[in-house]
């Protein structure tokens, strides 16, 4: 504050002390100080009004608007191109910030970890959490989860099939941030058969009354609603719609250390390090898991098992907020991927660069046209700084106009983008203050960057030369411009190349021999709900003339099949994990897999309960010449005899190699061992009309089960589903390469128009001297063609490298050394460039040379 003002305030204060209490004097002092806060009283800003900046900026603004309006064609192209680029960026910024915000809303999120079995194992033993809490002081709280699963609720007489269900311990709310609307969080999940619903679900079940305290039926059990919570936000790796308590049965309370059936989350005390806990888990595993494990491995002790080359058991901690992006296989239902974030960022970056290049190109291209203006301004006393401001204001104006258009474009393409990114963004997300601020910053940076070159370059002109028209040779300038255009071509070619490779690969996969015939196979889910009625249901649909065969399995192809450890029964025991499917005996004919050796097991033969059938890969791993009759063991006295070998078939995505596979027998009634039922799926091969058959099967289902909806999937669709992500990838590249080319073309069009305008006289003179229209067109075209080829030289190696990396995720790939894959994008971009430029050069070349030469 100014000294004089300060002095007055102090003087008043001292005077008041004499007459009033110190307190009231102080109060008044502060009040005076507050009232004194005016811009001109603050030290250093005394001259705020004497500066003429504001008026000057008003002038810059006015001049900018005039110059934009004078060059409507360039302005429109500039703003459109930039706004397309910004719109793409805006959407991608939205996506990325959403991805990075996952789970941040939890209180103390940095202290919460997911316990992984080994390095990244999803499932952990039942007692892991509670034992860890007892043994380690670092662990403040734990919770176990299972899910997500689908469940059918019976509310009154209505059936609701609901997904995103979880089971959890009662400590759930102490780790995760949940807002209870009704119910006591501490008691909600204490007792078995309790359930907590989200508000949406509660409203759905009980539209007119409070759901709290009501009872719903699940599988014949009565379950009490002990809490209603606010819906969790969308950006969580664990989006539940209901949470059930665990039953008090021994598998849930005691379990065993080798049975991994739960997800365990722990919350560390403040300041505890994750590494210290991980270190302690080594001894922990040796103490608890070791002894139980050696029972199966056949070693006398854990130490001996380790000495024998066994991998040490361990548990590791993964930060909860990393689950969504870095450990997507551990996320409970959210599908994130850090690679997608990278790819999206790269695409946004590329498109933005192309748009910026346009911007810069057009600005510098116009520079010579404006050199007279610059010269005149300088002669009239303009400072260089002021000229720089002038040009920056102009570029800011362009980028801010582009911003408004960009928001419009982004809103219009939001639906398409949601499909592309597999997210549910709304317009209000898009217009959120947060996103807008990011966009504004982006726009200012773009405006500044793109505007700075012309600003500094143009303002450096010598006034005399500029006025005489001798602009500093366009050499360096043109070189930069050409370089930028070549760079645009490079990005376009790169993106087209990626698109082409992705689609080729997807087509290739579609044509791959799977080793089975998924067409016309219907997978009926939840058939375990049939219970004892499975046999009757199966008989009923088998008699349908449109059904050729029916098989019962515990898991289904393409849907993920678990693996079991087996070991050989020979001198040097070898152990391996085999994909293990329980199936009844009609598998081969239903799914269309070919038998190579021996036979498939039979449902009737009692001795076949310990018979297994393997695939070629498993045979190769075993390495026996004659594999039929050989035996494999599961340890603890369970031995199985190989009775047949089937041809290899793809049971999951073609991204992975076919793995060793074992079929185990499941009885006709769905029992696999003793009393354990595992008939979760019934696969039906349909030979007649699809729709009517599905209706008939549904009728048969309804005859047997009343309170479970009929749920099915076609095996072919299910296989198709596996490449969903890759198809999205393909669409992303198509969209972005389309956008990139469109923006680049806009720029090219304007640039060509500009170049031709400048060369108008040259072309006219050439024409007068006898050049043909054709040769004149070629003259201009060859310039741009060169640039396309420079771009191609840049783009092809990068494209090759990147696509090689992408293809590496597939076990079956197309051959990348196909020259056509690389020539086609170059040709495509070249043709588009020719069309863009050719049209204009033709027009110029066809024009009457007199008109061009007449005016001087």
């Amino acid at each position, binding site marked *: 504050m100014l000294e*004089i003002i300060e002095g007055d305030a102090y003087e008043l204060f001292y005077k008041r002390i004499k007459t009033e209490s110190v307190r009231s004097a102080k109060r008044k002092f502060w009040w005076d100080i507050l009232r004194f806060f005016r811009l001109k009283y603050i030290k250093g800003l005394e001259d705020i009004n004497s500066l003429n900046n504001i008026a000057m900026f008003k002038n810059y603004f006015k001049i900018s608007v005039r110059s934009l309006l004078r060059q409507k064609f360039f302005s429109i192209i500039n703003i459109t191109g930039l706004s397309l680029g910004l719109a793409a960026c805006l959407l991608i910024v939205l996506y990325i910030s959403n991805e990075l915000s996952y789970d941040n809303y939890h209180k103390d999120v940095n202290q919460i970890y997911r316990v992984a079995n080994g390095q990244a194992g999803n499932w952990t033993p039942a007692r892991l959490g509670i034992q860890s809490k007892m043994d380690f002081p670092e662990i403040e709280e734990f919770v176990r989860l299972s899910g997500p699963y689908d469940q059918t609720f019976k509310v009154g007489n209505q059936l609701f099939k609901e997904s995103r269900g979880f089971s959890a311990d009662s400590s759930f709310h102490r780790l995760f941030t949940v807002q209870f609307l009704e119910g006591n969080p501490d008691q909600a999940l204490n007792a078995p058969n309790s359930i907590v619903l989200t508000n949406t679900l509660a409203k759905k079940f009980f539209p007119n009354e409070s759901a709290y305290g009501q009872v719903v039926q699940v599988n014949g059990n009565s379950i009490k609603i002990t809490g209603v919570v606010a819906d969790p936000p969308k950006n969580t790796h664990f989006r539940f719609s209901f949470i059930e308590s665990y039953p008090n049965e021994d598998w849930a309370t005691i379990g065993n250390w080798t049975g991994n059936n739960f997800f365990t989350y722990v919350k560390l005390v403040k300041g505890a390090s994750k590494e210290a806990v991980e270190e302690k888990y080594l001894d922990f595993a040796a103490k608890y898991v070791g002894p139980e494990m050696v029972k199966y491995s056949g070693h006398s002790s854990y130490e001996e098992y380790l000495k024998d080359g066994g991998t040490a058991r361990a548990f590791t901690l993964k930060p909860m907020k990393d689950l969504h992006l870095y450990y997507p296989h551990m996320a409970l239902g959210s599908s994130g991927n850090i690679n997608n974030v990278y790819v999206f960022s790269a695409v946004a970056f590329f498109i933005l660069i192309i748009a910026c290049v346009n911007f810069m190109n057009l600005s510098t291209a116009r520079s010579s046209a404006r050199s007279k203006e610059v010269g005149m301004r300088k002669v009239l006393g303009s400072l260089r700084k002021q000229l720089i401001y002038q040009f920056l204001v102009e570029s800011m104006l362009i980028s801010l106009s582009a911003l408004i258009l960009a928001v419009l474009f982004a809103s219009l393409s939001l639906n398409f983008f949601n499909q592309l990114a597999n997210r549910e963004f709304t317009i209000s997300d898009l217009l959120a203050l947060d996103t807008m601020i990011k966009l504004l910053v982006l726009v200012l940076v773009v405006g500044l960057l793109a505007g700075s070159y012309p600003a500094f370059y143009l303002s450096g002109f010598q006034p005399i030369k500029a006025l005489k028209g001798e602009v500093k040779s366009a050499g360096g300038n043109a070189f930069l411009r050409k370089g930028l255009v070549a760079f645009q071509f490079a990005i376009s070619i790169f993106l087209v190349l990626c698109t082409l490779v992705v689609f080729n690969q997807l087509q290739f996969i579609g044509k791959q021999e799977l080793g089975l015939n998924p067409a016309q196979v219907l997978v009926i889910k939840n058939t375990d709900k049939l219970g004892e009625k499975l046999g009757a249901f199966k008989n009923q649909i088998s008699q349908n003339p449109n059904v050729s065969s029916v098989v019962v399995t515990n898991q289904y192809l393409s849907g993920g099949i678990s693996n079991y450890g087996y070991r050989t029964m020979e001198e040097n025991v070898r152990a391996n994990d085999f994909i293990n499917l329980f199936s009844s005996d009609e598998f081969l004919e239903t799914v269309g897999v070919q038998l190579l050796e021996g036979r498939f097991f039979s449902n009737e033969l009692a001795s076949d309960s310990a018979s297994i059938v393997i695939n070629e890969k498993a045979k190769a791993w075993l390495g026996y010449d004659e594999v039929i009759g050989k035996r494999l063991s599961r340890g603890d006295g369970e031995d199985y005899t190989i009775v047949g070998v089937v041809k290899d078939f793809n049971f999951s995505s073609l991204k992975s190699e076919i793995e060793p596979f074992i079929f185990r027998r499941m009885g006709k009634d769905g029992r696999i061992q003793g009393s354990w039922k595992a008939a979760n799926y019934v696969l039906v091969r349909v030979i007649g009309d699809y729709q009517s058959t599905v209706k008939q099967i549904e009728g048969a289902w309804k005859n047997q089960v009343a309170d479970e909806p009929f749920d099915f999937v076609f095996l072919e669709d299910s296989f198709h589903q596996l490449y969903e992500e890759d198809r999205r990838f393909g669409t992303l590249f198509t969209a972005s390469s389309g956008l990139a080319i469109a923006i680049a073309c806009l720029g090219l069009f304007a640039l060509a128009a500009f170049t031709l305008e400048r060369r108008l006289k040259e072309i006219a003179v050439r024409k007068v001297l006898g050049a043909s229209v054709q040769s004149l067109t070629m003259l201009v075209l060859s310039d741009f063609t060169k640039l396309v080829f420079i771009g191609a030289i840049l783009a092809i190696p990068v494209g090759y490298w990147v696509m090689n990396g992408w293809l590496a995720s597939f076990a079956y790939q197309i051959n990348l050394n196909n020259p056509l894959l690389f020539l086609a994008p170059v040709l495509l971009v070249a043709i588009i460039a020719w069309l863009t430029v050719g049209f204009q050069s033709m027009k110029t070349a066809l024009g009457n040379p007199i008109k061009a030469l007449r005016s001087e």
Partner: protein
Amino acid sequence: MQRVNLGEFEELVLLMVAILNGNAYGISVMEEIENQTERKINISAVHSALDRLESKGFLKSEVGGATTERGGRRKRFFRVTVAGSNTLNFIREQRNKLHEQIPGFDLGLNPYVSI
């Protein structure tokens, strides 16, 4: 003089500066106003009025020497310029002229009331 651009409070402050004759700075002006008119005013209001008057050319100011009473901070003393005193005179004359034209018995008997 055509139109005097002077607000009521500004006029008051200008008069006070004239009265104080060389000893006018923020606080003395404020106190003078408080004493003479029994109006409670804030010091910042006085300052902005002083600033405005100065920018209108009715006051000029100079920064005085440091005194101990306010922690060595200097004062800014104001004086009325020629334009300022002309304006005061003009206002006064105009007022008097108008007052004299009020018809009635007690013409001129009422003392001049400052507003």
